[in-house]
């Protein structure tokens, strides 16, 4: 693959929380390498605590890995890269004291967009996610699904090449996630962004992703990568097709083993060391 086709390049990334011998010591990520192509939606899936969010935070520059390196485009990641990478967090990363419109505009202000451009761009991205009529609402007045749309609008307005999404629909109910997933597929097929998407849901991974990386149990590393060869935007009928079911089952097979391993592992260490220390959240 030519270097210009790669949006994110991770090389031998390892990360541990705490020092060896401490009760909070967790080896979250082990020697993981990864290339994310320009314009693809790349899903990370795996058992809880396998290091998928750790990898995402390393790519986003929110976490400095213990070893290894990550490049976004041609830039070494040494901290947040607001011009290149935008984030959608799991939930409630909107500022509750600002309206939806102010939230989106604040993001652009932090990024350094000139004042005059902010409001039109904010309104445009709110329209894109279907929240044009809710610009003056406060996050507390919106449903969970609408809040995540607003968070997505904030990330889109930053017009970065790379978008990182950490279980963005994790806290929503099944129906809402389904609709948001469909809308996301339509929306993103127009933008040509490179997206890294962490999820627990097999269905979500197959429906949204171009490629899915399955993580092994802790210390996490990529066990296998499965390509989902289906053009975007994907239709709801894809979800009921045989191809979808086959891919989903393939993922399930890969994942099931790891989840068992992860659970056996955590009960063993709980018995052994009196709990693995709930303080650090290595997932």
């Amino acid at each position, binding site marked *: 693959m030519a270097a210009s086709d790669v949006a994110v390049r991770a090389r031998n990334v390892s990360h541990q929380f705490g020092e060896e011998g401490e009760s909070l010591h967790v080896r979250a990520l082990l020697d993981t390498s990864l290339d994310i192509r320009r314009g693809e939606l790349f899903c990370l899936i795996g058992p809880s605590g396998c290091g998928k969010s750790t990898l995402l935070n390393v790519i986003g520059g929110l976490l400095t890995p213990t070893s290894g390196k990550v490049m976004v485009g041609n830039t070494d990641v040494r901290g*947040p890269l607001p011009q290149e990478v935008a984030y959608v967090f799991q939930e409630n990363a909107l500022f509750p004291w600002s309206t939806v419109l102010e939230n989106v505009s*604040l993001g652009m202000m932090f990024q350094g967009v000139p004042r005059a451009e902010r409001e039109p761009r904010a309104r445009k991205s709110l329209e894109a996610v279907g929240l044009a009529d809710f610009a003056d609402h406060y996050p507390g007045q919106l449903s969970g699904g609408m809040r995540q749309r607003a968070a997505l609008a904030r990330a889109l307005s930053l017009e970065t090449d790379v978008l990182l999404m950490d279980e963005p629909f994790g806290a929503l109910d099944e129906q809402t996630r389904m609709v948001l997933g469909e809308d996301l597929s339509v929306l993103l097929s127009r933008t040509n962004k490179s997206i890294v998407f962490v999820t627990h849901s097999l269905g979500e991974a197959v429906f949204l992703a171009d490629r899915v990386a399955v993580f092994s149990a802790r210390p996490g590393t990529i066990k296998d990568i499965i390509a989902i060869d289906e053009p975007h935007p994907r239709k709801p009928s894809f979800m009921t097709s045989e191809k979808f079911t086959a891919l989903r089952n393939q993922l399930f097979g890969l994942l099931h083993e790891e989840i068992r391993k992860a659970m056996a592992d955590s009960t063993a260490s709980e018995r052994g060391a009196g709990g693995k220390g709930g303080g650090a959240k290595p997932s």
Partner: protein
Amino acid sequence: MKARRKRDKNWVASRAVQVSFVILLLGLWYLGTTRWRISPILLPNPVAVWHELKDVLSTGEYIPDLRITLTELAIAFSISSTTGITLGYLISRSRYSIRVFEPLLAGIYSVPIILFLPLYILFFGLGPASKIALGATISFFPIVLNTIAGFGYVDRIFILSARSMGASDYQLFRWVLLPAAFPVILTGLRIGFTIALLSILGSETIASLAGLGHRIVHLAEGMDTARMFAYIAFAVAIALFLNTVTSMLEARARQR
């Protein structure tokens, strides 16, 4: 609509009970001084108190005392709010200093600081300085504690997301930390203001040269009970007014 009318009805009913309670107390007071012949030195007639109050207000006799009390309050509150907010912010900057200082300050806050009044008078004299020092000390604690709570426990996700979008230190403070902490700090300021007023009036009644509290004790010692009651009513009205204003300011600032 119906629910709303029902709520209004409840509101009217509870207000009616509150008003009749006050009227009942006033009625008992009146009966006590007339029918049951309680000595006017212990309990003056409410009508006499009313006349005294009118006299106090019309002659402007209250002005020097009120000015002293309010000046003491203003200075004490400016000292405690600036030091409280500054120190609270500095302490909130690190987990370690929060762990060290928060329990310490909370511990001192639970000490009845008014007990140190004799010491303050020894240090600062009988004049306004000792009242200012006491008011500032007492109101410092709720302000500093609420400032620590406001700045120290901002949800990490807000800070992370602002940083990920490229917020500078100043932007993080101005657009994330400050608005997140503001309502909590405001509550601290309101509590601080209220107890500063209480402690200043209280210490004026114990040892002082002037001020509303001093005037009240002076009248009590002169057995001029009716006028003393008039001054108490006046001080209560001032305190009520100030507390209503601060509560309104707080409610307005919280509104969004």
